[in-house]
């Protein structure tokens, strides 16, 4: 296997690893994959899942680049005070240009977990070089089904009632915040580098990409925010049934894919999506 360490980008200070297969008869049919940092985790991804996936796909002839955004892992911080989301967008585009120059790749799949999915979505919306996105634990919005499962399950849990009786239940905090007129949190608390768009904005972006021919692999672990198989379809009914959109739900996986079985499942699902001629970005080329 050929893996090479590199520094690239406008400032020459973005650190990454290129996994470059030997030229194979049909390797040029696959777009290259770019892995984006989830939050502040380094380029190897949570528990090395980016490395595992890159090496698995290498065997099928897929070129990839896993790199650190500025200020994360081995990449130097920027000094231009550009907000993190803008610099991330710019640097992902620099990563695509770098792979074009190095390997002749012109079409890309962006792979992002959590804030990485946010960045991937934003670049995918505007950059036509992006032909596929793998969004892992990207945007999720609570639906009726989500709330019924979340609260319904808790009604029958002894621990929930014990928490209510001992004052530890979040309900009490909610009530005290309400009494003191503090602003109540509406959605997932946002870190500085992650801003969740409204459901309408996300829907518009996803629809625009699908109509442009971008293939999407949406994968969710189990959380309060995403807790049943059809939640994506119920959230985005207009694109949830599109053949270009592949939705996976791993009910046993946590957000950082801690269990080895969840890491394997993530790698398996993405591999089969990318290599499946009917569902993946490759289909566009056949």
């Amino acid at each position, binding site marked *: *296997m050929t*893996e*090479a*360490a*590199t*520094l690239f980008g406008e400032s020459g*200070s973005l*650190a990454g*690893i290129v996994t470059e297969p030997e030229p194979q008869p049909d390797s040029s049919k696959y777009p290259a994959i770019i892995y984006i940092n989830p939050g*502040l*985790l*380094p*380029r*190897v991804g*949570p*528990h*090395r899942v980016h*490395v*595992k996936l890159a*090496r698995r796909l290498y065997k099928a002839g897929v070129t990839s680049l*896993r790199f650190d955004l500025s200020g994360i*892992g*081995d990449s*130097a911080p920027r000094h231009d005070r550009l907000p993190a989301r803008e610099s991330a967008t710019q640097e992902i585009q620099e990563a695509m240009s770098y792979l074009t120059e190095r390997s002749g790749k012109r079409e890309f799949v962006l792979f992002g977990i959590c804030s990485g999915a946010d960045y991937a979505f934003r670049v995918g919306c505007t950059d036509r070089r992006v032909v596929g996105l793998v969004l892992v634990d990207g945007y999720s919005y609570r639906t009726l089904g989500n709330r019924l499962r979340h609260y319904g399950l808790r009604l029958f849990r002894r*621990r929930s009632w014990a928490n209510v009786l001992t004052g530890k239940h979040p309900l009490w905090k909610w009530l005290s915040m309400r009494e003191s007129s503090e602003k109540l949190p509406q959605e997932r608390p946002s870190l500085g580098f992650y801003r969740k768009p409204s459901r309408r904005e996300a829907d518009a972006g996803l629809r625009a990409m699908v109509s442009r021919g971008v293939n999407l692999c949406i994968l969710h672990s*189990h959380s309060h925010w995403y807790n049943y198989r059809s939640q994506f379809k119920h959230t985005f009914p207009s694109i949830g049934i599109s053949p270009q959109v592949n939705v996976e739900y791993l*009910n*046993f*996986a*946590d957000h*950082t*894919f*801690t*269990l*080895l*079985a*969840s*890491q394997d499942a993530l790698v398996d699902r993405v591999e089969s999506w990318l290599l499946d001629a009917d569902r993946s970005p490759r289909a566009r080329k056949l």
Partner: protein
Amino acid sequence: MLPYFFGDPREQLLGVYHAPDNHPARDVGVVLCYPTGYECVGALRAYRVLARRLAKARFHTLRFDYYATGDSAGESEEADLDRWLSDVSTAVDELRASRDLPRVALVGLRLGATLAALVAPQRSDVESVVLWEPVVDGHAYLKGLRARHQLWLTSERHERPAASRHVSDHEVLGYPLTERLARSLGLVDLVDIDLPPADQILIIAGNDEPESNKLDARLRSLGITPDRLHLAEFPSWTEALESPQPLVPSRSLDAIVTWLTRETQ
């Protein structure tokens, strides 16, 4: 800063070299040995800052991923203590050969410190060693890892009942723990060493202060009086790992650089 692969091309290790900021560079290189598994992720930022400060103090500095970790070759299932020991030696050889250095210092945190302590006495070119909260008793370390994993699993079973069906006996907090690795970790006992790792040793103690004291006593019995330092920012690294943000204990890193600068004059 230069990331590059070194070692056997089929089993290459990813290193990141930090060149000295100013001339003349010191003739002692510093090899930084990461902790492993879940303890490593929270330490990476601190290591990067430490490497930069060492470079500013005119040290050639190399940090690297052991085989089957980070970006180095090997699947996570291939993690192996003997292999990691030989990786530390490979990294020392690499830094010395590439920068034409006669001597090196090793800095390790947790299991990284243990690897440094075990490799150093086998070589004649390691002048100083910094042992930051070393894993002194491998059996206790394993027990602690497994207990932490069980704690996580208990909460996981509550949050994600389906997870119970997918748990393997050979994993700990996101990383494989093969029987071979567990067996070799369980045999680690720094109190049992026959030779001191180096002439100059700095021990940074944390929660395992009694263990560090035992190591201290053993080193004294071998004729070496180690220097001691306590973290300025928090009681111990292992406790601080609970923090959701990457940690940079700045004053303690400065203390390491100052100690290395003094000891390698």
